[in-house]
């Protein structure tokens, strides 16, 4: 398996606030297009600087949210579990995404008709477990379906605050055992499930949550977020990460930030299955099972992690 991280992005050529499908969107507060392009380009550069390969999805007129590639699909090994958007405004993105994944060597898996599932926006691996948000966009039946298909444990988390309508707006795995989260976006059961299953949880304060602190892109030790998340960055540095901030205010107007603008094509660093894939890659010919210890390109768990 090639270790170079690969990230899918879509240039914001046709990005804008053309409808309102979450509380952030307001057509009377349009995004400044030139500024949005500058912010997007800067994010692309920061991610490329981490050593990641940036792949581009061609923008399509009339699909302003295609820029948020996190919602295209959930990647599991070589399968793209395509999104089925709840809002008709975004359903036009589905065929574009399907074509891109099939043209790029992914097995494309569609959920059954009538299910709602919004890709990596609502489904994030942390270790061997898939954490999945439901209620506002994705429905819980999709979790059960994906669990059956992947054989992975899925922890379903109810999202209770419409401002944090996707899981990736309030939860971000940092590695196999650590994650950032904003507790108030979950009900008490979800908060408890996270506490009981993830060894290290970094709490984000409400004002930083509103700056999309949780909507971070993690590439190795680098954690890229919107500006205005100083306390989180401080905590991340203490834990051995290298936080990077970049202004993404024009995308916050549509309810998205760094993570929403990206899709990790080779699986997030925190996904346990990448470890298995690498181990399988390193098995010498003739051996049935890996005998060596897989290596990680993420910070190893120390006393704190």
């Amino acid at each position, binding site marked *: 398996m090639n270790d170079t991280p690969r990230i899918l992005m879509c240039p914001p050529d046709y990005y804008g606030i053309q409808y309102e499908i979450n509380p952030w969107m307001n057509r009377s507060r349009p995004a400044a297009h030139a500024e949005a392009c500058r912010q997007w380009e800067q994010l692309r550069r920061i991610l490329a600087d981490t050593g990641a390969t940036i792949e581009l999805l061609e923008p399509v007129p009339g699909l302003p949210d295609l820029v948020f590639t996190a919602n295209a699909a959930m990647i599991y090994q070589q399968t793209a579990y395509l999104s089925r958007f709840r809002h008709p405004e975004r359903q036009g993105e589905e065929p574009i995404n399907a074509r891109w994944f099939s043209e790029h060597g992914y097995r494309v898996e569609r959920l059954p008709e009538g299910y709602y599932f919004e890709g990596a926006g609502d489904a994030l691996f942390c270790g061997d477990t898939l954490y999945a948000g439901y209620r506002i966009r994705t429905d*819980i039946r999709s979790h059960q379906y994906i669990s059956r298909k992947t054989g992975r*444990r*899925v922890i*379903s988390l109810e999202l209770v605050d419409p401002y944090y309508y996707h899981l990736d707006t309030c939860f971000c795995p940092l590695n196999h055992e650590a994650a950032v989260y904003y507790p108030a976006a979950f009900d008490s*059961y979800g908060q408890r499930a996270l506490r009981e299953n993830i060894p290290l949880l970094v709490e984000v304060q409400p004002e930083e949550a509103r700056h999309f602190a949780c909507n971070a892109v993690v590439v190795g030790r680098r954690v890229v977020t919107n500006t205005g998340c100083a306390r989180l960055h401080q905590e991340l540095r203490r834990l051995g990460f290298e936080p990077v901030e970049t202004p993404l205010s024009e995308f916050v107007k549509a309810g998205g930030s760094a993570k929403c603008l990206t899709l990790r094509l080779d699986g997030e660093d925190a996904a346990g299955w990448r470890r298995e894939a690498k181990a399988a890659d390193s098995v010498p010919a003739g051996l049935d099972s890996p005998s060596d210890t897989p290596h990680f390109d993420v910070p190893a768990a120390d006393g704190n992690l």
Partner: protein
Amino acid sequence: MSGEQPARVSVDVEVSGHIIDSLILPKILDQILTRGGRFEIKSFQIGQQRDDPSYALIEVQADQWSKLDEILASIADHGAVPVNNLDCRLEAADLDGAFPEGFYATTNQRTEVRIDGQWIPVEDQEMDCGIVVDRQERKARCVAMADVKKGQWVVVGYNGVRVYPQERTAERHSEFEFMTSAVSTEKPKGVAIRRIATEMRQARSEGGRILVVAGPAVVHTGSGPHLCRLIRAGYVDVLFAGNALAAHDIEEALFGTSLGVRLDRGEIAEAGHEHHLRTINRIRRVGGIRRAVEQGLLARGIMFECVRHGVDFLLAGSIRDDGPLPEVITDVLEAQRLMRRKLRGVTFCLMLATTLHSIAVGNLLPAWVRVVCVDINPSTAIKLSDRGSIQTLGLVTDVEPFLRALVDELEISDC
């Protein structure tokens, strides 16, 4: 009557996935309880390995369907879906007069069947029938076994059928709630009669039809004139009786006796035992009760008032009937069919001193029709309740003082 216990409805739901680690199962159970429901976990399989899903089969219970629907809607969002989320199963009747094996047997409670994902109310609700569905019209109705026709679609099994237990605490009937026991032998009759009068007035003002089912004891006890007053005052829309009530009522009109006893003096008349036969014979000779009224032969009594005031009466026969009178329907199945037709729109039923007719009519009535059963023998009301007419209020008393008091209570003063 089991009025003390709240009615209960339930639906089985299932939920699967990592419902323990996600705390989805406790969340669902908590939601059921906080929304006023109850639950019973019928089956539970815990995943053996960390990645294995668990499965729970839960019976969700509530006092009424509206509450249960609310609970089901709320837990559906967390992945708990009804096991029985199915349309009713239909099978074409393969012959006339019998249902397919496994047919759904009805109760007298309000029922709905699910067709193409939608709940359709069942019409002509009646116990011990089958449900026939018209797929084009999307209609369902209760049909008696003898009346099913080959090729009709009949509901089979229990899927896609739901029953609404009669709510006993509905405000409308609160006046009856003071008598929660089925048969009141030791309750103040005055209070009961006052409240029955209120119900009758209410039924009339709401446009409901009032049915009286009466036995010959109404005539023997000298209560005929009271019933006549009820009829004249418009409190009787439908009368169901047998040959005997009509025969003795007309006997009284023609001879002044009932089963040979002079009602004014209580004495047995000379050759009085022949009076009812001569009565029936005379009516048969003129071609029936209506003709007798038209010809002036019959000029008073219950049947006379029925004809004069357009009461929709039906006389059902039995094997021990003398005659019978020409209007008596001797084919019991035909009598049942006609009774069903006449019961439409009935909201209040007064059963007076008759066991067999009361039970027969009780079998045909939906549970939401208020039934008052007056009989000197407590077993009549008990039998009615035991056979499923749980809405019955039984009054154990001689019918004459009951009717006299009821007429007074209704302030009928025209005669």
